[in-house]
């Protein structure tokens, strides 16, 4: 049941009506109903993995209680470690088994051992990276006493498998979702209407934009050796827009759906392609994942390293920067790996990590240089140039992300930077590019809002409805084919 399917529209309508009309007096029944709806939603993809989801949620419920129960630090720690091993172990087996086994056999053949290849392949359960991260944050927050263990099994299971976020986020941590589950929810017209608008915008960018870009982008990346440099450059630009439209579209639909049910989820994108530097980009792209890695990996590593270093400099590098480098490299290696079991994702993560380190390193000298030459930091030309450079880095990194292998990514780059870069592109999807322009322009104008369809500044209802109508008809008439969301594979 895809968010952009008619089946989901029916499912959501039924859930909405029962939830608010039949069960609105009793929060317990509402929660139980939402949990069942979440399991139906997840089970509609593959019922076998539903049991895995239930088992993981139950295990974390028990671990959470035990971490909370013991006052003695050692026992708490044992339960935490057990929780980490279970969660990361399951993720490792389901997501990385094939990758590590293949890598092992490749390595063996590289050093001259010909081993028979394993025929066992493990299927990746949908959304596993997302719900494992929810579970991890649940037990880690209890351990850090940021969250008290909840003894109500329905509430905990719901927080770990809430259907709007179960497949591809936002990774709404139980510490912020559980209080909303526990509290009685009131139907609010404004919130529900805003939810619908956000869903509409999400559908627009997914169906009219991402799905229309999917076919030319796939074609270019699949057959890149047949295309000119300019076409390959267009391909990387199209993918840049496609992945944003696809994932931000999904997030908008998820957040909008939750709003319809009375929940507030965190924003996942904040118009990232208008970022001035790479740090700002990562504050605005997949925010729920970035903040997860920041809180549970980057900061703990930074603190741990800083406790061990007593000198002002390490390897001639200031300690502060050295800590940042170590923490960044580990975090970005794992961020890359989180996205998928392929070296291309690791390279992608390391490119971003590298540029973040570079940015951190040049911050102070840059300030000095600007002061010396008398350019204000908010100079429009400077902002524009820096935004352009940031976008270029992001686009080039996406080539690794999208390519099947590092070798193909390198060949793709060779193709771009060839003499044919200055020829007219062989593929130029006009309609999709037109929609991309409309989308990016609208988002730029609305960048201070939570989503692009918050149009309360337009006084006349007829105009607002006219805009909604226009979007609905664009979706109906110009929507692309049935495309799954890209982030489902992670």
């Amino acid at each position, binding site marked *: 049941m895809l968010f952009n399917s008619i089946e989901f529209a029916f499912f959501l309508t039924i859930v909405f009506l029962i939830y608010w009309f039949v069960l609105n007096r009793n929060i317990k029944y509402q929660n139980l109903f939402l949990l069942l709806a979440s399991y139906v939603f997840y089970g509609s993809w593959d019922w076998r993995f539903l049991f895995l989801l239930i088992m993981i949620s139950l295990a974390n419920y028990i671990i959470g209680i035990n971490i909370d129960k013991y006052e003695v630090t050692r026992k708490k720690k044992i339960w935490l470690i057990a929780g980490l091993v279970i969660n990361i172990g399951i993720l490792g087996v389901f997501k990385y088994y094939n990758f590590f086994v293949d890598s092992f056999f490749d390595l063996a053949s590289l050093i001259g051992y010909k081993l028979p290849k394993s025929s066992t392949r493990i299927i990746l359960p949908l959304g596993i990276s997302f719900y494992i991260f929810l579970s991890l944050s649940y037990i880690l927050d209890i351990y850090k006493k940021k969250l008290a263990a909840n003894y109500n099994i329905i509430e905990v299971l719901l927080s770990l498998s809430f259907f709007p976020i179960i497949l591809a986020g936002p990774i709404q941590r139980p510490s912020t979702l559980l209080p909303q589950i526990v509290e009685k929810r009131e139907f609010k017209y404004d919130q529900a209407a805003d939810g619908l608008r956000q869903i509409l915008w999400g559908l627009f960018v997914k169906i009219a934009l991402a799905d229309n870009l999917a076919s030319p982008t796939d074609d270019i990346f699949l057959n890149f050796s047949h295309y000119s440099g300019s076409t390959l450059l267009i391909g990387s630009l199209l993918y840049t827009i496609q992945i944003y439209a696809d994932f931000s579209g999904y997030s908008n639909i998820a957040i909008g759906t939750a709003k319809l049910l009375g929940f507030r989820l965190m924003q996942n994108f904040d118009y990232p392609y208008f970022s001035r530097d790479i740090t700002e980009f990562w504050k605005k792209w997949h925010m729920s994942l970035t903040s997860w890695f920041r809180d549970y990996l980057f900061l703990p590593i930074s603190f741990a390293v800083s406790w061990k270093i007593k000198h002002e400099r390490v390897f001639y590098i200031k300690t502060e920067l050295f800590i940042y480098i170590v923490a960044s490299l580990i975090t970005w290696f794992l961020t890359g790996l989180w996205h998928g079991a392929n070296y291309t994702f690791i390279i992608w993560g390391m490119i971003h990590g590298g540029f973040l380190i570079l940015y951190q390193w040049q911050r102070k000298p840059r300030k000095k240089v600007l002061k010396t030459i008398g350019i204000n930091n908010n100079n429009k030309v400077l902002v524009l140039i820096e935004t352009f450079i940031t976008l270029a880095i992001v686009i080039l990194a996406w080539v690794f992300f999208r390519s099947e292998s590092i070798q193909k990514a390198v060949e793709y780059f060779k193709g771009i930077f060839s003499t044919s870069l200055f020829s007219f592109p062989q593929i130029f999807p006009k309609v999709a590019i037109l929609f991309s322009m409309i989308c990016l322009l609208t988002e730029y104008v609305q960048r201070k809002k939570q989503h692009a369809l918050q149009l309360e500044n337009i006084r006349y209802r007829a105009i607002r*409805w006219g805009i909604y*109508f226009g979007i609905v008809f664009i979706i*109906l008439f110009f929507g692309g084919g049935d495309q799954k969301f890209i982030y489902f594979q992670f």
Partner: protein
Amino acid sequence: MKRFLISFSLFILLVGSVALGLFVLSDYVIKQRENNLLKISKNINKVFIGDSNVECAVNDSMIPNSINIAQSGEAYMYTYAKIKSLLEYNDQIKTIYIGFSFWDLIKFTEKIWLFSNEFVIEKITLYNYLLNYYDKSVLIKNNPVAYIRGVLKSILSNFQVFKKSFHRDEFNGRLINFGGYENSGRDKLQEDIKKNSFKEQVFEEGLFQIEYLKKISELCRQKSIKLVLLNTPKHIYYYSNIPEAIRQNWISVRNSLSRDSLLDLSRLSIPDSCFGDLTHLNAKGAKLFSRYLNEKLR
């Protein structure tokens, strides 16, 4: 809550009404232009129709007095609708060559071409206005969601075709959106030989495919048109690996259409370099085959 439901229902109602209105209008305007859209040159008396095999194999520019209107993934239901409407406006047509390959008649193909989301949407977008109530009911029964999506998409497509119908001369004698000779540009022969996926398919008869093929045969008989079942060249590796059940089914369907002629060129000797994959000819193959066909049809 009440206010929300009223507003939402009103919005949906308005969207639905406008969509319905546009659909009725687009259907009406395209039907008004059918005469112009479907009329082909008076000297064309041979029609090649079918799926991608015919689409890629027959270069109609090399066969005088012919037109190729085959389209990839075309189920016989759409072929039937196309032939019916074409014959209505073109009484000069004397012979129809219809694609008749082995896997056209099996359930596996039928499920994809006739009932999968992708194909229902694509074909309904193009041909909804040609289908009758029975055809539509078959699709609605089997994939209602895709049918509705196809109908919505057909609105814009109909208006575009309507607009193009005023500039027919720009289409070099082709029928708008009706398919035609296409060089697929495929180069996957060796890959396909390695994959050998055809063997994995489970055999079951494609009942709708067979039903519509028989309808086409009946229609041609009524209109005194000669129908030729055309099996285009297949690669030798493919030919020798066709499962016996599929081959027998093909023979049995052919025998049930004994009044129609069969032009089985599936074993025609054609070099590997002429195949785009196991069942499709490339541009070079199409040239070779079309020349041969032209000689044979003289």
